[in-house]
């Protein structure tokens, strides 16, 4: 990476070196010929334009002004028309050749054009072309390496996210299992035990009529006490086992309820029991990310969230209105859906959805000023092809 950086920098150095050499050559030409004060004005002017170019690279107006400046001076003093090779070089370098024409008119109108000067002009243009090709190539590789770096950075982030997610999923699985066991204890064992307690209590009311021995009564009381104790312990165990955090669709409802700025309607269809635990994480993140984006980027009055669970797939959609987009952009798009400049959050969601074999789409609907985020996840092995 350091080597590539050096290579990029060296091109700029060569470019500035070319400019410096041209100024030095101009100076020596001027020293050897007449040495008039106008020549010094020319050299200083070209120097100033070269420095200005460092602050405003690629500006057409600088090329134009430099052309006019050199052209105007060569109109006053034809001997320096050779200096026009510098604006020609810059014009070809930035591919803005039209801007050098006004100055060139001055030069050809009054300047002493001869074969050598034409040759120098052509050489300047040619050098500009060559360096432009090199510059374009550099810019291309620079961009490519930037994209590559971004990808790597994102992959690293995703990796980290997955690692932390794994821990969360483990915890969630544990909680879900505890929830299931508690529910089953409550539904099956609990009811049976309560029935037993009630039966024993009914039996106790008629025990006096049975004329039992005292030790038999004692045995009965002990057994009843034990069943009572078991019922109490079971109740406590179920109570303790039941997780306090909300799980699954309740979790989503909790987020929606906490989000009090804008009214949100969350509709859930289908049997959410079928949804694997790690999907809930993704849905939770998607809902949070979507709501944050709404707050940040839209002037929304209405948000609709919907979760459909079918036999084979799960579809989550989040839709909001009030997306601020320029009308002219919306009209120029033939496609109904505008391309979105996705941020880190949406990109991470997309990748996570893909890794579960699902589909992710986030788009602005051009005609309706709406934004829609859709996640489709498979509820069978293999994912959506």
């Amino acid at each position: 990476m350091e080597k590539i950086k050096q290579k990029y920098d060296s091109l700029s150095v060569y470019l500035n070196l070319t400019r410096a050499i041209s100024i030095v050559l101009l100076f020596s030409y001027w020293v050897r010929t007449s040495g008039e004060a106008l020549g010094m004005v020319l050299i200083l002017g070209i120097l100033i334009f070269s420095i200005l170019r460092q602050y405003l690279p690629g500006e057409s107006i600088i090329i134009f002004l430099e052309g006019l400046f050199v052209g105007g001076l060569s109109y006053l003093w034809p001997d320096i028309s050779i200096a026009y090779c510098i604006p020609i070089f810059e014009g070809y370098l930035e591919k803005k050749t039209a801007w050098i024409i006004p100055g060139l008119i001055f030069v050809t109108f009054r300047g002493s054009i001869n074969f050598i000067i034409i040759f120098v002009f052509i050489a300047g243009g040619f050098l500009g072309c060559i360096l432009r090709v090199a510059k374009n190539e550099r810019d291309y590789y620079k961009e490519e390496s930037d994209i590559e770096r971004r990808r790597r950075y994102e992959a690293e982030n995703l990796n980290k996210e997955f690692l932390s997610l794994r821990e969360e999923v483990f915890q969630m699985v544990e909680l879900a299992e505890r929830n299931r066991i508690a529910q089953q204890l409550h539904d099956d064992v609990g009811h049976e035990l309560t029935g037993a307690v009630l039966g024993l209590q009914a039996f106790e009311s008629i025990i006096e009529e049975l004329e039992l021995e005292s030790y038999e009564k004692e045995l009965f009381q002990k057994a009843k006490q034990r069943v009572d104790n078991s019922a109490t312990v079971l109740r406590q165990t179920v109570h303790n086992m039941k997780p306090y955090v909300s799980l699954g669709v309740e979790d989503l409802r909790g987020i929606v309820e906490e989000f009090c700025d804008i009214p949100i309607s969350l509709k859930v269809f289908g049997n959410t029991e079928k949804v694997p635990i790690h999907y809930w994480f993704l849905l939770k993140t998607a809902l949070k990310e979507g709501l944050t984006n709404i707050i940040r980027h839209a002037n929304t009055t209405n948000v609709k969230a919907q979760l459909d669970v079918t036999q084979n797939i799960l579809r989550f959609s989040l839709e909001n209105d009030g997306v601020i987009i320029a009308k002219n952009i919306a009209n120029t798009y033939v496609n109904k859906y505008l391309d979105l400049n996705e941020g880190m959050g949406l990109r991470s969601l997309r990748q996570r959805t893909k890794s579960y074999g699902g589909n992710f789409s986030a788009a602005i609907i051009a005609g309706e000023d709406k934004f829609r985020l859709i996640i489709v996840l498979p509820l069978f092995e293999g994912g959506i092809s």
Partner: protein
Amino acid sequence: MTIFNFVFKRTLKGKFDIFMLLLPPIITAFISVETWLPIPLGFQMYGVILMFLSSKLCKTMMEDREKKVILRISAAPITHLRYLMENLLAYTLILSSINIIVVGIGVLRYGSVTIPPLNMFLLFSVFSATSIGLSIAWYALFKHTETAYSILGGLYISMAMLGGMFWPIEIMPQIIRRIVQILPTYWFALGMRQVVYTGYDGNLFMTIGILLLFSVAFIMVGSRKRLG
């Protein structure tokens, strides 16, 4: 204009600072030895004094960078250009007032025939701008004030010598006379002669224009935003 005001506060902190700023120019104005030009030696040397004064003034900008004040200014809601412009304006104003004093002393002591006040003031003020630019450009090359300051003396003296401020330019070979035109000091010396002998070797306003171009180029080199 906080920065503008602050430059005055820093430069003219006490009476001693004002005294030290005024002493060299006033002494120079009283050096009345005549040399190859029919104006007092002090006025020929005044260019060198201007260069040193501007380097002393511009030191505040260098200190800003060294003490990381510039880093805090860059975090403030003020552009770098504005910081630079307010500083430059303040320096130019200070040097111009000194120029007025020096030219005033000259006119009072030697008369307005020997020292043409308007042209002389114009030349001095433009050269002040050039030397401020030169100092800023010079400081932009260095990281530490001390390094920049220690070499600066030698540089300015040699520039003045080559530019023909200490002896007539005519005694140097033709080729060197051409090459030294790259130095602003040459144009100052030439301007001085044009002020004294009207019509000497070209137009005074052309010389002043070249000096202004020099200052623009120097300021542009020196205005590179360097925080560290």
